[in-house]
């Protein structure tokens, strides 16, 4: 899994540089968002629920970037900002907080299950006292 994601990161990074030199900025932006999403994928390490959430994040980025281009000339104000800028301020800015929320929600099930932590500390926690992990 790690190898496949790193290969994808390599491919998207190369593509980003090519798109930059072609000045294909929207495609570059999508590649940048793909890179950020793949980074999260490498850290989370898989799982159906997480994969779905990451696909939703990338879809969200794509829709918001597309919307900003689509509405570029629209002067209508939404919550105080021109419509495309509102997508930036109320969409792209806070949306990744959901990934922080996801991290917290799956912390004990996927990120660091208690039994894994106990096993790790028992086998490798040489520096500190081999204490029990804190309770939930």
């Amino acid at each position, binding site marked *: 899994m*790690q*190898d496949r994601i*790193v290969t994808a*990161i*390599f491919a998207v*990074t*190369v593509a*980003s*540089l090519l798109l*930059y030199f072609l*000045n294909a*900025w*929207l495609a*570059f*932006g999508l590649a*940048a968002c793909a*890179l*950020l999403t793949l*980074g*999260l994928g*490498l*850290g*989370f*390490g898989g799982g159906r629920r997480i994969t779905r959430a990451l696909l939703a994040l990338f879809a969200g980025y794509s829709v918001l970037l597309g919307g*900003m281009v689509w509405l*570029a*000339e629209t*002067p209508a*104000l939404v*919550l*105080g*900002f*021109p419509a*495309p*800028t509102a997508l*930036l301020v109320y969409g*792209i*800015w*806070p*949306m*990744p*907080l959901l*990934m*922080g929320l996801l*991290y*917290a929600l799956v*912390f004990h099930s996927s*990120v*660091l299950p208690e039994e894994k*932590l106990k096993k*790790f*500390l028992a*086998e*490798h*926690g*040489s*520096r*500190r006292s081999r204490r029990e*992990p*804190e309770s939930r």
Partner: protein
Amino acid sequence: MPISQSPEILICVVAYLACCFGIGVWALRRTRSAADFFVAGTSLGPVVMTIATMASIMSGFGFVGGPGLVYESGTSSLWITFPATIGFALSWVLLGKRLRLLAETREILTLPDVVAARYGGRAPRLAMAAALVLGVIGYLGTQVLAVGVVLVAVLGVSLPAALLIGLGVLAFYTVGGGILAGVYNDVFQGVVMMIASVAVLFYALVAGGGMEQISRTLWTMDPKFIGPWGARGPMAALSWYLIFGLGWMGQPHGITKFLMLREVGGLRWGALLTGSVYMVCSLLWMSIGLAMRSVVQTGGQPPLAAPDLAAPVFLMNYTPPLVAGVVFAGLLAAIMSTANSFLNIGAAALVRDLPLAWGGKAPRHELGWSRVATVVLLAVSALFALYMENLVALLGAFGWGTFAAAIVPPVAIGMNWKRATGAGCVASILASLVLNFSLELASRHGVYTLPYGMNVGCFSLLVSLIVFIGVSWLTGRGAEDRLAPEVRAVLEV
């Protein structure tokens, strides 16, 4: 009225400096070892770590340069501060657990300790220490200069006198209490920054006649300015989003906080909390720049002589003196919290990382030598700030990009990919340093500038990633088998 003649501002700033001093005295009594000095004895709770991380990352640039950039180029600048939300998520997901658990297995006080444990051999530690020293000199020089400039404005004294006062307080709590004093000052400073940001948002909206009125005024002036990409265009904005999104994982003053956390379970809510708190502080960045530009456009204020004056002019003319005082204290807080972190990282690089990288040992009295190194670093950076301003500006300009391009591949990817190698680590660090320095110098001397507004740090990071993965593939035969058992366990947990 000049800033220096406002008693409210003076009182706020002096009270702030006194609080920093008091925290320094408290931490001095609790700092007894190098581990206390560099990683706060691994004693931080989650809330303290969250606010301290935000405060150390939000430098003086966020309080002065950020609003200035918004004033100059509109929403383009928001693409620098908005990636914080994805950046913190990436940092926690890719690094939080790995760094904290690695510190459970052996003595890990610094980032060069991390790469030495991950890759083995001296070269990765040496390359990382060199990158840190270069980046720290730049960052520290700009922060020291900023401390001087703010205190000159507030106290009405000369630059050398201002540096003596500001750096005296900074030196006291950093030298005495190490990172412990730094972290608890960061918490205090972070709270000041949040209060300042919310207050400023309110007064900015009042000054500009509400957000809708500000947007209409700026749209009439230039639709691009308040459009989604700002005056610098989409490629610049998107390259900023990428470098400031991925780049969080390469900021040593942020990610070393993972080593200080008391319990690994304290990571759980950190990404969400830190991102949220940083969003609050970004309100100042966004609101002052847009409001000032709108007020200038409607004739309520003459055009500013320099974009960086947006924040001070706004505070003096559009907020009550007490609010201005809190914000100036917040500004000083942002600068000093970042400077403290870099002093600590720089001292560690000089006293611990470079000697270990050359095959020696850390000095016997590591704590004492770390204090000496901190004083030396402060003195050198003050001299740089006073007499070599151009060099400071050059190094400071690519501080973020240097760290991001040099640290993200070997640390963020390397701690999550078993086939990464020491050769890949060294090659990517060297490539990032050479590219960053040469492109920045070429641009400054008009020899070559990356087209379409691409950020130099972003370009260097992309190349550095390719070099890291490519060289690791080429040299990775048997890399997994050479991993130390506890490092393998950290990568697999």
